[in-house]
């Protein structure tokens, strides 16, 4: 009697009362969402007169600039990413296995480094290409203006397309041959089959990629600032760095966050659908399309993309770096105060590494809660913890400056604020990795462990953790990669003497000292390739 009573209450506890993990998950979600709420409150309670002035003078232009760039870049990355994925996954173009790797590598190059190189090459008269042309007595006036809208769109497209490429390549890879064959048997031409069967089945992957690119574009500061195309992010940075007008910065940030939240909401909606591609027992890979004589064109398209997005930038960085290192004066100029290159590398690596560890630790309770206790609240927590996707670096910096000053003054002017910014901004990536790792783990393993009298914590350490570890590592690699490349929040929040590779690249190239900036930029790319390689190896398209 007593026993059954205990059992029943036990069961009831399991189904109705809140599990302990929920509190932890809730606190983490709260931590992730506080900066957003704080900024929104600051924006909404902003001086109405200031609101009116901003609406009258700036808002329309910022809105149209930002949306225009968003539209152009998502369209561009989708076209480029999907066609590259189609060529490497669905056709017999030569070298496609190597191209898969090469096409993903631009993820190691921060777009602002791309923009620096773009400008160094194409500046009218001052640029390397225009100077070569002049030496050959060819007028360089036909070269397009590298700055402004088209310049920014171009740079962002060639350094963001890999997102779409990876997601749509995975979708192409999982296509089932039977669908296409059925369509052909029903009399559709190959062209019709492509549009009516292939595209719809990879659409969720493409859309997810495009929405992630959109969020990145909203957050991008370096590229648009350098190429002088004003968007919300760069306008907020100017308010903060140049005028230190926090009220105006808060209002602009509030509008930007609302815009980003709309996109993030769309991304949440699409996320569930993105998983519908199924690989059942009936699955076999669709046959490759033989391009015949057109193979050369496919090859050239792949090669040209890799050339522009990876070989030229990295080649130029290597060239400048050797120039910079060989020249004693430039090399000794790679010093700021008492700090040199070693300190920049150290700061970059430890702050990104620490952020990666924290983000993954924080993501575990969320992942366990949402996967093991599916429901409205757990899903809400999971989504709240992913709001960081929608907060650009400048906005994270703004909110942390205000929050830390007010509530955590002992953290003020420490490098930990920078780490905190990375965690807030990139914890969504860790949450997603941890969640998908948890989903692949059958609860029966954990139940077995509980039956063997292990408590919840022992079960987690002895059973769950070893099994989800690869997923956690992937999440931390992702956060590390993103934090390493982060620029605006680092610029605004760093204490004196805390110089990272990203900061040095930015400040030196702003002054036009490319030889000094190049070794730091090259190191940044090389360090970024390590986690990227680890991440790519996990992708289905790189497994044979």
């Amino acid at each position, binding site marked *: 009697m007593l026993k059954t009573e205990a059992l029943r209450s036990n069961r009831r506890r399991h189904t109705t009362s809140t599990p302990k993990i929920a509190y932890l998950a809730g606190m983490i979600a709260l931590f992730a969402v506080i900066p957003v709420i704080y900024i929104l409150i600051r924006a909404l309670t902003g001086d109405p007169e200031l609101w009116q002035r901003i609406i009258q*003078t700036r808002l329309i232009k910022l809105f149209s600039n930002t949306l225009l760039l968003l539209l152009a870049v998502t369209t561009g990355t989708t076209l480029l990413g999907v066609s590259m994925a189609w060529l490497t996954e669905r056709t017999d173009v030569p070298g496609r296995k190597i191209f898969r790797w090469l096409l993903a590598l631009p993820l190691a190059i921060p777009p602002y480094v791309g923009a620096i190189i773009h400008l160094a090459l194409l500046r009218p008269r001052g640029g390397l290409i225009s100077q070569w042309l002049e030496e050959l007595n060819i007028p360089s006036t036909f070269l397009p203006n590298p700055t402004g809208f088209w310049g920014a769109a171009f740079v962002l497209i060639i350094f963001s397309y890999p997102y779409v490429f990876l997601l749509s390549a995975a979708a192409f890879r999982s296509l089932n041959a039977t669908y296409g064959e059925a369509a052909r048997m029903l009399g559709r031409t190959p062209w019709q089959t492509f549009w009516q069967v292939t595209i719809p089945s990879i659409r969720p992957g493409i859309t997810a990629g495009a929405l992630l690119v959109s969020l990145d574009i909203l957050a991008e500061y370096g590229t648009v600032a350098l190429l002088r195309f004003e968007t919300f992010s760069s306008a907020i940075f100017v308010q903060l760095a140049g005028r230190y007008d926090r009220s105006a910065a808060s209002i602009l940030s509030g509008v930007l966050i609302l815009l980003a939240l709309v996109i993030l909401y769309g991304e949440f909606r699409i996320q569930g659908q993105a998983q519908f591609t199924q690989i059942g027992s009936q699955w076999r890979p669709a046959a490759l399309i033989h391009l015949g004589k057109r193979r050369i064109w496919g090859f050239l398209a792949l090669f040209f993309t890799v050339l522009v997005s990876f070989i030229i930038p990295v080649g130029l960085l290597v060239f400048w770096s050797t120039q910079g290192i060989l020249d004693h004066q430039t090399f000794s*100029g790679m010093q700021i*105060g008492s700090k040199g290159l070693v300190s920049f590398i150290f700061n970059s690596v430890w702050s990104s590494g620490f952020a990666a560890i924290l983000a993954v630790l924080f993501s575990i309770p969320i992942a366990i809660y949402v996967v093991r206790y599916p429901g409205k609240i757990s899903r809400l927590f999971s989504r709240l913890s992913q709001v960081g996707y929608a907060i650009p670096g400048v906005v994270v910096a703004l909110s942390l400056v205000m929050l830390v000053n007010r509530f955590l003054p002992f953290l003020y002017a420490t490098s930990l604020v920078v780490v905190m910014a990375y965690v807030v901004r990139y914890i969504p990536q860790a949450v997603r990795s941890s969640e998908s790792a948890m989903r692949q783990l059958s609860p029966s393993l954990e139940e077995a462990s509980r039956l063997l009298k292990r408590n919840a914590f022992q079960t987690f350490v002895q059973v769950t953790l070893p099994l989800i570890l690869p997923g956690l590592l992937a999440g931390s690699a992702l956060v590390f990669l993103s934090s390493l490349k982060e620029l605006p929040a680092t610029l605004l929040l760093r204490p004196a003497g805390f110089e990272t590779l990203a900061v040095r690249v930015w400040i030196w190239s702003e002054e036009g000292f490319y030889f000094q900036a190049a070794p730091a930029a090259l190191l940044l790319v090389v360090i970024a390739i390590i986690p990227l390689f680890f991440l790519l190896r996990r992708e289905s398209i790189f497994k044979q």
Partner: protein
Amino acid sequence: MLHKLWPVLATITLILSACAGSTSQPDAISSIENENSLSGKLIIYSGRSEPLIQPVMTAFQTKYPQLEVLLKSGSNSQMANTLLEEKANPQADVFITTEVFTAYALSREGIFLPYEPVGYQNLPDAYKAEDASWVGLTQRMRVIMYNTDLVSPDELPASLFALTDPKWKGQIAAAGSTNASMQAQIASMIQLVGQDQTEAWLNGLIENEVTFFGGHSDVRKAVGAGELKLGLVNHYYYYLQLAEGSNVGIIYPDQAPGEMGIISNATAAAIIKGSKNLNAARAFIDFLVSEEGQEIFAEGNYEYPLLTGVALHPDLEPIVGLNMANIELAQVVNHFEATFDLIDMANLP
């Protein structure tokens, strides 16, 4: 249930505060310090362009190898506002600014600790605080530089106001609104020619499609390469570009009788009240106004040293003989709010 979390939270907080402590706490240094054994950290906030300040820091560092010199450079107003924010909890030891108005304003807010460096009496009164809370380092002028391949001498603009002439449409480079020299120039113009005329001038620049860069290094490079014909800069950017072998020339604007004259300004330095390494801070200020420090600014940066007796760079035009604008420091400082309003109204990038 929550109680089980406390240990975890407590640990995290502990770790965080431990790390925070280790990074933010200044090294304790003994109060009796002899000149050659300065140690610990010297934290410098600088609103100046880094390459212009690094040589003098390197020289100082060579002198005091035990000292760890930490620089945070940013835009002048960002650093100034950071100092205001940190008033109760100062982090920096020394502030270097590109223009005296910021120094004056911060001094009024009680941010600085007065100090008369060695040789204080040899510095001009015009560029030091009455209470010795800040001291001027070098002087500079706002000038127009041009590309000699693209502009012939007879069509040169003789005044800043000529930059709004439509014949220069799309051919002028300038620094944007975040640049302190530009801000200071606008504030000075409000005092010299009034708010309306300054506003008209700013709108004229916008209408003339001036290319606004983040800083002057970009401006001088653009003019040097011939990307743009004219550039509005501080005089030393012209000399730096000339030294790189570009075909550039310099115009000292508004020289005719009755015109406003050249707008000039000075860089300045001050010790922060609450500095945790006062000896090092004082030694650094001493060094900045010493002959050795002033020579570095004069030789490497083509700036006008303020210490009497230090030779100008041989290429530099002596100030004597130029028509300089009559700038009232105390007045201009009060025009800064109006300056930012004008910048916003004109939508200066």
